[in-house]
């Protein structure tokens, strides 16, 4: 992998956030800016999640094992945009009104499932360091399979959000992408090379 690729992708992953700042200062967030930034950060969290899930199928298709070194970065960007999404919910949507937030989380299924998805992402982000990967060993793999649960939950969050409007086009597209990326893992491939680990320096662990 060329040395410039990862920094370039890191910069690109920050573009959606930079765009919000530019639009915000230019007055380009529309009549309901809070709604705009809520939806934008939510959508980008899901996009980053899809990119993260795409790494393994792409690697298997291309045989370019070095791709796995990008996976953690995109996973953490998914968590980053999800945290922004949640921070907007806490601050701009509810202005730290704990009662209103708890009511949302407990009474409204679409908020509940979104909140649970974020909670499940926390241990993944927390164990993304090299030290944690080494420490957890095989358990790390098991733990990080949580993403197979998280991604469908996020699609469901989006789907239920759009349900009242009967407007399922966008969540359906993301649903198909996530389903495709998960199913791609079931397709057997001939393993011509050693399966790579999340850390190229750690040998012998399984994907």
């Amino acid at each position, binding site marked *: 992998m060329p040395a410039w690729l990862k920094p370039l992708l890191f910069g690109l992953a920050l573009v959606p956030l930079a765009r919000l700042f530019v639009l915000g200062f230019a007055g380009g967030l529309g009549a*309901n800016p809070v709604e705009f930034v809520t939806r934008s950060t939510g959508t980008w969290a899901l996009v980053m999640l899809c990119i993260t899930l795409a790494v393994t199928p792409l690697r298997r298709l291309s045989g370019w094992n070095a791709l796995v070194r990008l996976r953690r970065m995109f996973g953490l960007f998914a968590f980053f945009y999800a945290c922004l999404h949640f921070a907007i919910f806490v601050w701009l949507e509810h*202005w730290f009104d704990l009662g209103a937030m708890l009511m949302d989380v407990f009474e409204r299924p679409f908020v509940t499932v979104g909140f649970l998805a974020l909670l499940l992402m926390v241990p993944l982000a927390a164990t993304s360091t090299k030290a944690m990967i080494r420490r957890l060993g095989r358990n790390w793999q098991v733990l990080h399979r949580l993403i197979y649960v998280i991604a469908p939950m996020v699609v469901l969050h989006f789907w239920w959000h759009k349900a*009242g409007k009967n407007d399922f086009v966008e969540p359906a597209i993301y649903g198909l992408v996530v389903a495709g990326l998960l199913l791609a893992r079931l397709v057997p491939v001939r393993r011509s090379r050693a399966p790579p680990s999340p850390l190229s320096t750690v040998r012998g662990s399984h994907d």
Partner: protein
Amino acid sequence: MLIRSRSANEALASEITPKRLYLRRRELLRSAAVGAAWLGVSRSAAAASGIATPSRDAPLPGAQPPSAGVRTPPPGEGSGQLLAAAPSPLSTDEPLTSYHDVTGYNNFYEFGTDKDDPQRHAHRMSVRPWTVVVEGEVAKARMFGIDELLKLAPLEERIYRLRCVEGWSMVIPWIGYPLSALIRQVEPTGNARFVEFVTHADGEQMPGLSSRVLAWPYVEGLRLDEAMHPLTLLGLGLYGDVLPNQNGAPVRLVVPWKYGFKSSKSIVRIRFVEKQPMTAWRRAAPHEYGFYSNVNPEVAHPRWSQATERRIGEDGFFRPKRPTLMFNGYADQVASLYAGMDLRKNF
């Protein structure tokens, strides 16, 4: 020690109107005016009998003159077909939502489900000629041309709060007259209990019709007494101009105490019926959208609370959302329509 002595022209604390009441003075006057209108008493009779009219009608020295007759869209905006309209005591004096937001942030699914779709696509709708068929349980079923509708009753400017079911709100200077003026022309029969409003549906002009979000045409309805209420407006313009297409040109409904989707846009048919009509949103999601859909902070939407709202252009990054008021703040005028009804069940 300094002892203050009261001078002759100083008011005693007991003589001062409590601030709470003073701040509500317009509301109190307004409900008096609505009460009068509701009883079929004309404004002049009300004035003659000593019921005070709001200061808008009799400006205080130094106050702004009534501006409704000369309100216009911002330079370069609007159609240029200005409508002269008299100010109304039923108007709120809250700050207006900008013309830009009123005409750029809309739900009008016939043109697409995004908020900016109506502004981008509604120019494709032809609004002249335009006729509205009024039929059903009426003695005098007939058609009205748009020019006839513009002259049917004196135009008023009504500045109303608009609360969308999605949790945002605006303050809009509408132009129109009470729907009751139209209803009286067609003389509903004793069987007429509900009124159904049908919106224009033409796939050639409305790209949103290709999506199956709702069953087209868009149908809404009111109980006859709701339709006859003096607050219920037949809307023909806003900001001193005829209605922009994205806001439901050329003729729409404005029912300020109900969620915005009850106020049908671009109406082509008004039908008086005996049974409660099946409305578009109830057909699509009956557990989420009721027939009444009165603004009610205590009854949550299944996916979000209705206790607060974001006033477009005011609440956002720097100010929290504001509490939503029962019947969108029009409870004094309309609560009696629903006396004895369980509003949780009849949401």
